[in-house]
């Protein structure tokens, strides 16, 4: 028991230190690097707190994708910042305020502890046999609270369309060299295999569409950073189809049930497992496409959203 206490204390202290680094380090570049380290540490903390699904997602999305995104967005020239005394004062006051708020929040939290098993988690375990999948987190995400997940896909779609509308994709960095190409050739099939494994695994163990999609998107990041290998060519229609696929499958499966007199998103028990796998497959492809596009920072094809169509300008 004592040993775990030491481990926990170390983890918490490291979390706070890395968070402080990524909030207050002198240059943006350092802050981004601290942030990536923070993300990796967070993944370890999730594993410690018995949340392996989150550990997978955090390593792939939180540290990996967000980190790559932030690194790519770093301005090339570092502006030198000089802080005036007034700014310093505001800084101290705000830090003081934050400390005060944190103390209040922690004090409030102590009134809540210990949080023990309540109704909902018991309810989840009790109904798990009707969910079609045996992994509780997947059951919550894809069955009990499927509406959340559906809207979350919509959030991701919305961000992606927003990104696509703004600008063409970032240019690939210069070619990283032959050794990197070799690594990419090894990694790429492994990443795709891992994604498939995570997707399949989600039904009964940690994993699922989000982790699988993120791993596939990581493959895009690797390809893009390598600079030597080109992304597979898509047509605009294919791109739009891939974007819409996950949500479309999800909604159609949900609505079809309505025709049989059941609730929206209610899967028949015998079919639940396969329907969830179907939805997750579509979602994985969509999530991978969307996260890749968000990372690339725009449309990879020149004529987003529709090629050569400005004929009715005169309206």
């Amino acid at each position: 028991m004592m040993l775990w206490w030491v481990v926990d204390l170390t983890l918490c202290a490291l979390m706070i230190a890395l968070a402080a680094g990524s909030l207050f380090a002198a240059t943006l570049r350092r802050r981004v690097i601290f942030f990536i380290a923070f993300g990796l540490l967070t993944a370890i903390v999730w594993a410690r707190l018995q949340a392996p699904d989150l550990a997978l997602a955090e390593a792939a999305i939180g540290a990996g994708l967000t980190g790559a995104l932030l690194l790519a967005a770093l301005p090339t020239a570092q502006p030198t910042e000089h802080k005036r005394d007034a700014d310093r004062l505001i800084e101290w006051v705000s830090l003081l305020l934050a400390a005060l708020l944190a103390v209040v929040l922690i004090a409030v939290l102590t009134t809540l502890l210990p949080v023990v098993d309540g109704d909902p988690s018991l309810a989840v375990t009790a109904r798990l046999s009707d969910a079609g999948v045996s992994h509780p987190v997947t059951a919550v995400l894809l069955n009990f609270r499927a509406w959340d997940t559906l809207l979350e896909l919509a959030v991701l779609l919305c961000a992606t369309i927003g990104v696509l509308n703004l600008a063409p994709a970032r240019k690939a960095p210069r070619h990283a060299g032959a050794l990197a190409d070799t690594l990419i050739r090894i990694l790429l099939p492994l990443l795709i295999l891992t994604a498939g494994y995570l997707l399949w695994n989600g039904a009964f163990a940690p994993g699922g569409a989000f982790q699988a999609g993120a791993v596939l998107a990581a493959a895009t990041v690797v390809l893009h950073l390598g600079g030597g290998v080109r992304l597979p060519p898509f047509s605009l229609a294919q791109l739009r189809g891939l974007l819409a696929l996950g949500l479309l499958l999800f909604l159609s499966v949900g609505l079809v049930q309505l025709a049989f007199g059941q609730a929206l998103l209610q899967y028949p028990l015998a079919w639940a497992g396969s329907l969830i796998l179907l939805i997750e497959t579509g979602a994985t492809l969509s999530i991978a496409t969307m996260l890749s596009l968000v990372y690339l920072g725009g449309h990879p094809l020149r004529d987003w959203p529709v090629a050569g169509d400005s004929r009715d300008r005169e309206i």
Partner: protein
Amino acid sequence: MSSLLVLIATLPLMTALACLLHPRGGDQLSLVASMIQLVASVLLVTELPSRSSLSHALGGWAPGLGIALGADPLAGWLVLLCALVQFATTLYARFYFCDSQARYRLWPLWWLLASALYALLLSGDLFNLYVTLELLGLSAAALCTVGAAKAEALEAALRYLLLGLIGSLLYLAGVALVYAEYGTLDVSALRTLISSSPASLASLVLLSSGLMIKCALVPLHFWLPAAHSSAPAPVSAVLSALVVKVAFYLLLRLWFELFTPVVTSAFATLIGLLGAIAVIWGSWQAFRATRLKLLAAYSTLSQMGYLFMFVPIVMALPEGDTRQFAYGALLLLAVSHGIAKAALFMGIGSLQQHLGHDEIDRLGGSARKLPVTLFAISLAGVALVGLPPSGAFLAKWALISSSLVSGQWWWMLVTLVGTLLAAAYLVRVLGAAFAPTAAAEPALPTCRLALQQPALLLAVLATFGLGFAASPVWDTLSLSPPEVQR
């Protein structure tokens, strides 16, 4: 009838996907979908008085384990408001964005915003509300950037996005505390569970401050004028009329239904005070604005202030008919402002497209060229100021008399000053518009009538529709949940 809820919740999502997959059909699809949505929400509202509320358990799971869609009269009327404004602005956006490429970019985001609005209004789950809030914030910010060619517009959109994220985080923190304390996220279950405790108070403060950022109550308002005034006109209309309103709707739910044991009269008075500051400051800034859209954005600030200012009045009233009457008036004010503000923004958009600018001092002669639009703007102004035939007049009248009943006469003074200022800034605009053409202005091309009609439609509705037909609105609005429970 619960399939009506499913239709209203999923149709916008389906339309968004259809517009994404088939961009060239976006115009027609949007028009048809907004019509269906309007009909469905009218049906929903007519269905509601007979039954106090509708609900649909998603996935067939009991709420608590699953999520339930639900609607009571309050949600129903706001759904109707959304559908109405959405219908008019969709019509309008079709002609506002002349470039078809811009429309291809617009429609999917437009319908994602709509799905966020409806999903939020129908949702009965605190975390699901968080997801809808994020969808709302992201789609609104993304819409602000459609066709944006100026750095200011993008800056405003960026600030809007980031503050929205901070607001959502605060909200989520409140949800976390509620879940830790009560072990459920289901709103209807929480209604009976929540009691007064430090954690409840903390979660109330967190939830409220998160949502108050989103509806721009005074100390947290600074993002609104820039964001609402630099977005494209149809987007501004939706942002001002609906997006801030649904955040206010959530606050009403929190304060009047969920956290009733925690909300004290001091808390309510504080909210009212902030609202009062917003009324005066927003009106004054609107009066001083040099651009029409900025004026309209500041006017939104002050109108939202009214809504908050009347909260302590309603709360001070004893439970019962008088309180329900005042509650109904508050909602009437919100609905009427939503419709009028959408009309105003669309009118301004037409003016701006026609003149190439929206500076108030250079409006001379526009009344002769765009009589329909100017008529719409005047009518919308009548509804915003709260002059007699409008619904806002009835609502304000009812609320002021309630404030006298509950002995809080000082709110009346603020209302008076705010109304006078509102009248002043609208007279200023109309005066400029009806002035003869300045000599230096180039000859103005005539504006397409189609661009002007939707604004007129909404303006007429806000002024005459809600004014003359207020009593049925009132009846159903007063049936809102606090009474249903008794």
